[in-house]
């Protein structure tokens, strides 16, 4: 096994920022807004770095797709302990419409090119909330997948994954190479240490274009409109259970 792990890291609007919709309802305001690494991607990087520290794998490669600023996100991953980065340059309209299908094609192509043993992604990004990229990547590669992982143990050629599912926790064992997606409780991502921030400067980030990988970034989707969520209206208080049932019937919910 190559001992190489690809980790996808996405640059998203910081979780603490108040999102504003553009006046023309075509999207959200991103100019001048604070961006950072998707929290679930941080967890994915942490898991990969921990595996390397335990000497279960040999190399962690951080991948990000987007314009020049995506390199900042890769640097953060390098400062956390990733060994090198790959920046897949996607700009303009292609970047605006970049979604799980395109990214999973990229990840699949890179996984083959880099002879990856594992791909670890965040379960979803906090902007799109699609929760599709990991699954699509596995399907394109015809690899097993361990999604919503809250615990991962790499054991030789197999991975034991504890998954958070609606009913509770499910434990599966899959063969590598495989795709894993990180859920919230998988680990607590480390803060980059200052020495690692210094070392990150020297680590390499390779730049490629989707065309170099023979990929078509055309989107199959068209965004018609983006709106703010409706304002939460005040509720109505009732005195008894009977009142509650009557009200629910009245408003057609029962």
């Amino acid at each position, binding site marked *: 096994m190559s001992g190489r792990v690809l980790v996808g890291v996405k640059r998203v609007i910081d979780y*603490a920022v108040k999102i504003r919709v553009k006046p023309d309802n075509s999207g959200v305001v991103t100019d001048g807004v604070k961006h*950072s690494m998707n929290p679930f991607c941080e967890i994915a990087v942490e898991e990969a770095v921990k595996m390397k520290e335990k000497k279960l794998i040999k190399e962690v490669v951080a991948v990000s797709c987007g314009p020049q600023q995506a390199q*900042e996100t890769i*640097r*953060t991953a390098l*400062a956390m302990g990733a060994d090198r980065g790959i920046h897949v340059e996607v700009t303009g309209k292609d970047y605006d419409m970049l979604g799980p299908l395109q990214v999973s094609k990229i990840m699949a192509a890179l996984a083959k090119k880099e002879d990856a043993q594992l791909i670890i992604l965040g379960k979803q990004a906090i902007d799109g909330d699609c929760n599709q990229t990991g699954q699509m990547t596995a399907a394109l590669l015809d690899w097993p997948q361990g999604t919503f992982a809250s615990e991962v143990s790499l054991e030789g050629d197999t991975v034991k994954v504890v998954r958070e599912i609606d009913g509770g926790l499910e434990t599966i064992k899959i063969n590598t190479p495989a795709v894993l997606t990180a859920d919230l409780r998988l680990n607590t991502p480390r*803060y*980059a*240490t*200052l*020495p690692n*921030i*210094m070392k*990150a*400067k020297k680590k390499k980030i390779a730049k490629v274009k989707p065309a170099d990988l023979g990929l078509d970034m055309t989107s199959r989707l068209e965004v018609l409109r983006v709106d703010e969520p409706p304002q939460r209206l005040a509720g109505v208080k009732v005195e008894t259970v009977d009142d509650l049932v009557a009200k629910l019937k009245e408003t057609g919910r029962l």
Partner: protein
Amino acid sequence: MAALFTARRGLGACLSGRRRLSQLAELPETHQLLRQTCRDFADRELIPIAGKLDKEHAYPAKQIQDLGAMGVMAIEVPEELGGAGMDYLAYSLAMEEISRGCASTGVVVSVNNSLYIGPILKNGTEEQKKKWITPFTTGEKVGCFCLSEPGNGSDAGAASTTAREDGGEWVLSGTKAWITNSWDASAAVVFATTDRTLKHKGISAFLVPMPHPGLSLGKKEDKLGIRASSTANVILEDCRLPLDHMLGPRGAGFKIAMQTLDSGRIGVASQALGIAQASLECAADYAHKRTAFGAPIGKLQAIQFKLADMSVAVESARLLTWKASLLRDAGKPFTKEAAMAKLSASEAATFCSHQAIQVLGGMGYVSDMPAERHYRDARITEIYEGTSEIQRLVIGGQVLKEYQS
């Protein structure tokens, strides 16, 4: 005119490549990453507990350990000795972001970096560095700096703590006052005189482990602000030390202290910037949310003018602080700039925290909002590591030297 010209050329030379003064606003990428990392740490780990630490006067032991693991407790120390191997600009950025989260945690970091490790790094033998610096890089142990005494603060040359040689040992006696980290420290740099007739030239620096026979601590001071850091007297009564516990040459103590404080000023300036920034953010946020006379108060000119004045105060102090850091990193003289940074930043902190309370009105006066804590934390920055009056003396003296015809 000539002095201005050389200063600008000097600064231009110390910024690598073609970067000029005007590009001071754009930090190098590593420093941006460092700043962001420290900011994230402050947002997630310090801000949520800062109020509680203040109320309980509780030392942030876990947070200091976490910062140690990140390398923040020994930023300038070379990696071989266990530090982060970064420069003073990095230290200033880290200090500002940490202090923006919790000013008390900031002072613990500052004292360890500038006042304890600083003089040992500059004046210690290789053995002293290994023994007295390396264990203090991880956050598990912190140090303190004992210069002030009940009888002299600004008048540091009048030290009355004595050190006499006796039977192959140094014996220290005297009392040091206002010592930050005293109750949490594992070592101290102590200034004592071997010959009072030599006045400030009789002072030497000593390394004292804590606890140690002959060293005791006074009661913890009940302070107005930075309450999560301990401040107390350090009392030395026939405290015996091996001869190799002297730091630097005999009689060099005053010079070591002054040099140390020059750098320490950048640390305190950065702490003050953090407090000022936190106040500004608090006020700006409130200005958006609070409505009066039918609109958010941010629409009122009076509030806008306050925010503008606060913002100019912080930003100008910040640029002065960065300039002092860059000069120091380039090995150029930085005494005047460090004093200017500390003076402007501490006055910015008291100004901004005062105005923040004003913007918040009644809410600024209660502990539900952090504005009152920033007000209390800011006040000390105009006093310690050289009062604003001392800074003015230093700057005035330097200006006169520069313009000597």
